[in-house]
């Protein structure tokens, strides 16, 4: 390993791994504990629960998967619901990849980087990467994401085995970690009026759309409407500043 390679890969990877262990990895890990609990409820093996964390790597998808099986939903409906709930990864990944872009990066490398996109890695990467030299970003991001997944795989395993032990209020607490954490990390990442409007409208519109449109399309519609309105509000406010 040359000095340059070490500076570009190993050190940023280690720094990313360490930064994630400072806090975010434990919070995500806690939020995925409930997935192990849900998997056990539907009689799936602990290996399937842990694999869902490593391969799906999306709390809402994993929760939808196991909770829908418990509810007896059709397989096509489960896949459709997860597909729609995960559509957010398209814009999220599109927004993140330019920060990680390097000359000569292959499609396979980008697909690997894209796999790690999930709420926390995304929110934290958007916040941290701009302050890191471009040639160190990929290493840092991989280290950060690897720590998140490693800790989460362990907590999913723990959640599976804790399920039979903890009382119902604690089990409810485990399941509520995901939404509480999502909302907190989004609130902590607010950069302007647009973000506030997007969060507020998303919270209000999704239940309304769920009631008016029904399962499947409601999240997409509320996201598109809420996000677009937030975008317009932000543009309108920024316009005089940039011109003046």
């Amino acid at each position, binding site marked *: 390993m040359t000095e340059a390679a070490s500076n570009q890969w190993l050190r940023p990877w280690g720094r990313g791994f360490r930064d994630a262990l400072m806090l975010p990895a434990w919070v995500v890990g806690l939020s995925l504990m409930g997935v192990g609990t849900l998997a056990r409820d539907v009689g799936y093996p602990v290996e399937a629960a842990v694999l869902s964390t490593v391969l*799906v790597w999306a709390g809402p998808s994993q929760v939808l998967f196991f909770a829908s099986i418990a509810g007896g939903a059709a397989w096509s409906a489960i896949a459709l619901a997860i597909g729609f709930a995960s559509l957010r990864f398209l814009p999220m990944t599109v927004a993140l990849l330019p920060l990680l872009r390097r000359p000569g990066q292959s499609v396979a490398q980008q697909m690997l980087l894209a796999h790690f996109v999930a709420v926390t890695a995304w929110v934290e990467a958007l916040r941290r990467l701009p302050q890191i030299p471009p040639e160190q970003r990929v290493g840092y991001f991989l280290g950060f994401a690897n720590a998140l997944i490693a800790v989460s795989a362990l907590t999913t395993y723990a959640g599976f085995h804790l399920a039979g032990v903890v009382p119902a209020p604690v089990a409810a*607490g485990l399941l509520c970690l995901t939404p*509480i954490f999502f909302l907190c990390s989004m609130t902590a990442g607010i950069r302007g009026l647009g973000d506030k409007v997007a969060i507020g409208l998303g919270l209000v519109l999704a239940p309304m759309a769920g009631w008016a449109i029904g399962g499947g399309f409601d999240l997409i519609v509320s996201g598109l409407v809420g996000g*677009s309105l937030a975008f317009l509000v932000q543009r309108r406010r920024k316009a005089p500043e940039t011109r003046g």
Partner: protein
Amino acid sequence: MTQPIALLDGPWWPYLALLLFAVLPTEIWRWLAVAFARRLDERSPWLEWVRLVATALLAGVVAKLVLAAPGALAGVPLAVRLAALATAVTVVLIDRRKVMLAVILGEIVLIGGAWLPG
């Protein structure tokens, strides 16, 4: 409980189901993004729009997980679930570095509220 597809049932069914109905519909969007992202500049206003749509979508997921709660969470009164969220967000709004504290306080409200006799 959703039963396995008879034709494909067997000891590997949970893994097959996971791959087909959870991994694939999730991962496909990350892959599609790779195809799109190449042609985009990170400062383009289009990306700002995309980021805000993703943020609104995510807020929507939170609302749905709390309102149409899964498993044991459904047994907790809605007012307690909302109070837990409100507590956590208030902490982050006061100091945005205190995400862990916010999550812990939100959880205390939720578990405490669930434990109190209705």
